[in-house]
């Protein structure tokens, strides 16, 4: 075990991944480095499993993955690939596990209590993200957003309140939530994407349409992110969430600097592939999980197709807006060249109508984008989080299996010791067996718990999905109807003018 002073991302992976992923970076990011890094495991025979680093929850069978890998280019790129929740365990947040009792911040039993409460407390909270404001100058500048919460829930100190937050604050919140909840099966909504290109434009003060669009896109994404997070009855009550929404000052989240969605997704996908390639086949006693996993995989494919389809539609709509504006201009020019007064007036009116159409096309393109393209993108990213919890369940199962095997070995060792005269060693062996038995029981409970949680979470996800889509679609249709009414109005005006020619 050795300390690595570089950016590290820990993933619970079994199997031979080091050749593929391991690469040391040069930059240091102190909050992410850990005391001890155990070597990778090659299955249950590895003695490293015994290593019990109190600070590293993922001590067993962890694989170090450096962020300064070939993926770095993707990290820094402005690609459209969906984000994946980072699963780093900031050691400050989670209480260290001492021995074999789990002192997680939130024990499983307390979650069950919260869920029972949820039925009584009505969900009434609305969060808006607004007023983007540039703070500072040059490359150190950042965008500050106003986060306003309106609620009648007793959970909060006031009914309406605002705070100022910057993008890295959101990433920091997500990072904390992911580290606390993902590994026990909760689908934590992913944070919006980083965009180095987009932000740089804003920082250098480029006040053009594309940087305005970028800021608006981000603002909307942040709002959706927060709403999705608080809609989750467990996450809503998390102290980090409450602090994020309420407290006027927030400690700066430094660990988010290198967290980029694209690079993380690549790495997690590789990890997931490795899990799939493993010869260890999980003894799936519950067909529900297998069916669900397949279902989500095919849903992922469908959503991505839809997303591409909508992006193409948005693109053409914007093109139509440009072409309509040009047509309007040329009609105006023709009108100006026209001698016949009434005809000239009609042509000028045509130009005006087409200018209005241009505006309507732009509005339509925005509706297409925000109500569908972004929605679909959000769901593709959410599905990655769903996939993550399923993978965690497999790892939890694996841990339980490994504990059982270990227990067996210890029993065998103890049996052997029976025939020797080493009474102290025998006692030690007996003690270890007792510990191990406790561990096996706990691991089994963990596995059952995560399975239960995932079932509930999937149910919640599928319910939310319907509501989400329905809400977006209704907004979209309302905008369509409004647009058509404005089109009709424009044509009425035009008809009146041309009739007098």
């Amino acid at each position: 075990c050795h300390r690595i002073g570089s950016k590290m991302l820990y993933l619970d992976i079994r199997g031979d991944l080091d050749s593929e992923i391991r690469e040391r970076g040069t930059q240091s990011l102190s909050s992410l480095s850990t005391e001890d890094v155990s070597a990778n495991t090659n299955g249950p025979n590895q003695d490293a499993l015994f290593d019990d680093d109190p600070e590293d929850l993922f001590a067993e069978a962890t694989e170090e993955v450096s962020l300064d890998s070939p993926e770095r280019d993707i990290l820094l790129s402005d690609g459209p690939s969906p984000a994946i929740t980072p699963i780093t365990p900031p050691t400050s947040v989670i209480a260290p596990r001492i021995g074999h009792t789990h002192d997680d911040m939130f024990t499983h039993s307390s979650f069950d209590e919260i869920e029972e409460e949820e039925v009584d407390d009505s969900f009434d909270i609305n969060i808006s993200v607004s007023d983007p404001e540039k703070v500072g100058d040059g490359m150190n500048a950042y965008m500050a957003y106003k986060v306003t919460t309106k609620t009648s829930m007793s959970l909060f100190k006031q009914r309406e309140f605002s705070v100022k937050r910057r993008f890295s604050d959101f990433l920091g919140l997500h990072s904390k939530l992911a580290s606390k909840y993902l590994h026990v099966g909760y689908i934590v909504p992913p944070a919006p994407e980083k965009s180095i290109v987009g932000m740089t434009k804003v920082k250098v003060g480029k006040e053009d349409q594309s940087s305005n669009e970028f800021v608006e896109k981000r603002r909307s994404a942040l709002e959706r992110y927060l709403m999705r997070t608080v809609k989750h009855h467990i996450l809503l009550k998390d102290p980090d969430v409450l602090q994020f929404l309420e407290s006027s000052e927030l400690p700066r989240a430094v660990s988010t600097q290198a967290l980029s969605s694209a690079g993380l997704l690549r790495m997690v996908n590789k990890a997931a592939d490795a899990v799939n390639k493993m010869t260890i086949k999980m003894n799936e006693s519950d067909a529900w999980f297998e069916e669900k996993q397949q279902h989500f995989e095919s849903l992922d494919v469908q959503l991505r197709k839809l997303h591409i389809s909508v992006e193409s539609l948005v693109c053409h709509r914007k093109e139509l807006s440009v072409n309509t504006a040009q047509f309007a201009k040329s009609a105006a020019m023709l009108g100006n060249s026209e001698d016949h007064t009434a005809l000239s007036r009609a042509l000028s009116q045509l130009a005006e109508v087409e200018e209005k159409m241009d505006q309507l096309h732009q509005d339509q393109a925005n509706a297409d984008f925000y109500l569908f393209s972004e929605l679909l993108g959000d769901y593709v990213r959410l599905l990655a989080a769903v996939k993550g919890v399923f993978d965690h369940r497999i790892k939890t199962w694996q841990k339980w299996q490994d504990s059982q095997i270990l227990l067996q070995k210890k029993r065998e060792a103890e049996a052997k010791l029976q025939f020797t005269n080493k009474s102290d060693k025998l006692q030690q062996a007996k003690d270890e067996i007792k510990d191990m038995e406790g561990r096996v029981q706990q691991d089994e409970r963990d596995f059952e718990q995560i399975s239960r949680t995932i079932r509930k979470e999937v149910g919640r996800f599928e319910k939310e999905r319907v509501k989400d889509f329905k809400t977006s679609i209704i907004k979209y249709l309302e905008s369509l109807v409004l647009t058509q009414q404005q089109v009709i109005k424009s044509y009425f005006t035009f008809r009146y003018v041309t009739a007098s020619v």
Partner: protein
Amino acid sequence: MMMTEENEVESTLSVCGHNIQIAEVLKDGEMLSFLIVSQKLSGTGEYHVHRNYDDFEWLQHNLFCQEDVAGIQGVIFPPLPAKAQVNTAAKVMKQLGFLSLGEWQPYCKALEVFLQQVAAHSILSKNKAVEVFLTNPDSPGKQKVKKNIFNRLSQAVDGMRKEGHKDVDDFFQTARDHNLVLTNCTKTVTEKLLEVVQTEQKIAVACGHFSAALLLCVEPGDDPNKQAFSKVCVKLSEVFESMKKSTTGVSENDVSTMGLGLDLESRYQEAIKEMLFRRTCKLVELEHARRNAEKAKPVKKAAMEELRKAAETEFEDISRVAKEEITRFEAVRVKMLQQAMVQWCEKQLLTAKECADQFTQHLEVFRGMNFK
């Protein structure tokens, strides 16, 4: 009574000019064959004839080659669209613009207008070829066509210089200047509208794709959440089918009214340009003839004078006809453009209303969806 040469070729058209129709377009091997229907002026009855593009060209050539008609060069000849075939080359399709769209319907309409304008023209309708074209059951065939003696701007050797030649008549100088501006503006507007239409078509296709992709998201099973999501996908698919339909409708309206109108106007402006150029060439010719007559030595003087007189008469005839044509055309043109715009507006209004109704219905469906 001595008949003048002009009267020999004179004939009265036996059909009604303003409602000539192209009822059908058929594929005849590589060629397109058009069914032309015209109403007999005497009582009831129709003529049904099949013609292809070569026949149209035959007609046009006959109209051009009427040297015996005084001032024929001053006529604004109704423009004939370019030749279209079953498999037309991409370059020609591009040249045809709006006429290449809509399964040849706009193209047929353009040919129809051509025939209507010819039949309505006081000078052109008198040509026998028009009657033959519209009424003779047999195709005029590949008759030997006399050489087109017209100076075409595009073929003139020093066209540019002649085109700029200063006019002696303010009316015509203004007409020429104005025509230059209008030709360019109209061409641009037509091109820009075509680009709009092409983008509308792309949007319709994209809507279709999205609609189809949504149906793939339907999830089987009894699970109520899955059923709810499936229903949402199916209904949303219907929304985008509606959108596809309405966008297609908008695009078709653009083509059949405004597009066609602008295309016709554009080709007519070109025809006027050609006519004015012919007159300008005649003016140049006249000025040469005058100079020659002045400078001529006594021996040649008489002959040069003859030429000068002939040139003057021709120029006067052309100018007279041209002036009438321009005045007549102005009225026709304004009416035509107004009609195009009114029709466009009416059709788009109808499509927009249908679209609004459909979307409102879809909205009600979604609002009414209640999931447990």
